[in-house]
Every structure is written in C-alpha cells, then in structure tokens.
C-alpha cells in the first residue's frame, strides 16, 4: 500500500507525541515542526523506519522571521523518499540569541555545505559540524547578510546617489 501523508503523520505522532506539531499540507506536501533539540532524533527515525525511509535529503535552508519572538530563525529540511516518491518538509525554530542546532552531517553527507550556507546567511550554529565556516561570503564578513535587518546593497559604497535610486 502506498505511503500517504496521513500515514507519515500518524507514525510521527505515535513515536514523538508532543514533540512534533503543526502538521500542514500545502500543495500536496506534508510539513511539520519539531523542537530544535530533537531534530536529529526525528531525522534518524525518518531515515531508519522501514515504512518511512526518507533517505534523500533534498535541501536545508534557513528562514528569518524577525517578528516571531523566540522563534526568529527557522531551519527547514526537505526530505524525499525516492522509492515511494513522497516529499516531506520538516521545520525547526530557534531563537536568534542562541541559534544552536545539531548537525545532520553524520546522517547525510550533503548536509555539510548546506549547513555552512545556512550558517553563512543566518548565523545558525550547527553543533558538531566538522568545518563550520563561511562558504559563499568573504571570510572576514562579520554579519549574517540574509537576516531581515540587513539591507541588500553594499553600505560602504560612496559613489551611488540614494536619491536617484529611490532610497533617499
């Protein structure tokens, strides 16, 4: 019998109870949330459980919600079960003051650079990452550019007239 979103939800709730929450289905894709401390347990369960087998990590990215106190930075994992052809989205939220998340590198080798990119853009500290340094930006950069409080443009530029660009 093919795996459905309801089966996945049931299995997760059965195993983790209150630690997983916010099950939503948007555009056919089931998405849920777990506490940041348990992300590895959930990922391991999704990997090992014979009926679930989410063994392909499609993507890790971060999102910044500056208005959501205590849950400012979200790390979103997209997983894929290639045999049943089902995708899954798994989110965790961490406060911007202590953005610590356990690394998924031991489980998925592809998580290595994706976590470095999330660190580079949002400042998420992946605990246990073998090489957590900036990957896309210059090493000397001292802020995390994709957070909403920082602007897109280079602030050190002197020859651009903000008035002319509608930013006066």
């Amino acid at each position, binding site marked *: 019998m093919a795996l459905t979103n309801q089966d996945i939800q049931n299995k997760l709730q059965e195993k983790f109870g209150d630690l997983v929450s916010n099950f939503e289905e948007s555009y056919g894709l089931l998405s849920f949330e777990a506490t940041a401390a348990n992300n590895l347990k959930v990922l391991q369960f999704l990997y090992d459980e014979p009926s679930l087998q989410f063994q392909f990590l499609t993507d890790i990215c971060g999102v910044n919600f500056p208005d959501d106190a205590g849950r400012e930075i979200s790390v979103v994992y997209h997983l894929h079960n290639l045999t049943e052809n089902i995708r899954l989205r798994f989110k965790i939220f961490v406060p911007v003051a202590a953005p610590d998340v356990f690394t998924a590198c031991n489980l998925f080798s592809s998580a290595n650079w994706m976590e470095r990119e999330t660190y580079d853009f949002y400042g998420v500290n992946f605990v246990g990452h073998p090489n957590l340094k900036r990957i896309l930006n210059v090493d000397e950069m001292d802020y995390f550019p994709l957070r909403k409080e920082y602007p897109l*443009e280079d602030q050190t530029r002197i020859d651009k007239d903000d008035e002319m660009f509608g930013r006066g």
Partner: protein
Amino acid sequence: MSRPVRFNTTPILATTADAVGAVEAPPGFTGEGFFTTQLSSVVGLARKNSIWPLPFATSCCGIEFMATMGSHYDLSRFGSERVGFSPRQCDLLMVMGTIAKKMGPVLRQVYLQMAEPRWVIAIGACASSGGIFDTYSVLQGIDQVIPVDVYVPGCPPRPEAILDGFMKIQDLVGEESIRRRHSEQYKTLLNSYGIQ
C-alpha cells in the same frame, strides 16, 4: 496561425568576395626599398593585429565569449587566435562576468602579473558596473580595483558587441604612443589604484 514576421523577411546573404582584406599601412613616406613612418605606428600596427587575450571568464558572459571564439563569430580573424591563461604571456585582460568582492584580490593579482603594455576590457554589465547585482557581495565594477580601457555593456553582450569592443581596443593599441607607459599621467593613474 502564428503571427507574421515583420522584420528581416529578405535577409541579405553574405558574400565572401571581399572577405579577406589586408591591413592598411600607416601613413608614411615610401621610396625605392624603404618606407618611413612613425615607430609608434608600426609597433601599434604589429601589436593590434596580434593581441593575445586572457579570458578571465567568470560567468554568463564567458559563455558568450565561447560563442565569440567559435567559428560563427570568429575572434581569431582579429589576430587573437591564441588565448592564453597565463597573465605573464598575455596583453589583454578580458574580464567577463560578475566579479564578487571575494574575487577582487584575485583579479588584482592577475592584473599585477601582466607585463606592460597591458590593456583591460570589461565585458558585460557586471564587470563594467556591477550590473543587475547591486548587492553586498558584488564589486560594483572592476574599475574599483584595476584601470579599465574599454567597457562593453550588455547582459550578456552579443558576440558582435564583444567584437566591437575588441576593435576599439585595437584602435587604442594602434594609436598608443611609445612613451605612454612611462608618462606621468599613466603613473598617476596606476597610483590611484595603489599599483606601483
């Protein structure tokens, strides 16, 4: 059916009757077995028809450069058949593509390794001024780090535009005075970039 074509309905086919032309000699005085002209003209003539470019291709403009090097829009007609990747051996630094701030020091290093006389052509909007990427990580034009001779706008510029820019470089090379590289003006230009 699909809407009718309005432009170029009778394309002009190319002919090869006058495809090959000899380079014009510079103005001078000819006599029996001798020809006098300015040294800079002869040197310029030789240099401009045998420029060895260094394609510093970083992104999309690099692919248009590959199309320019292809047989359709042949760049080797202008004498630059031999592209080199070593700055020590090249005359023209063709910067094609976006230069990010991380790449800036590398570009400067490559420019410093080139021997005089050297020219720089900035191909594409990103190399000329940062292009559409007015962001924290993109250098807003390579003339922030190295002096540039010709800018070719476009995103990416058509191969014809790259060839036009190349021909302008040829004009610059052909007209250049022998003493330019030792002149005060050139030295102040380089000093403004922090290059000795």
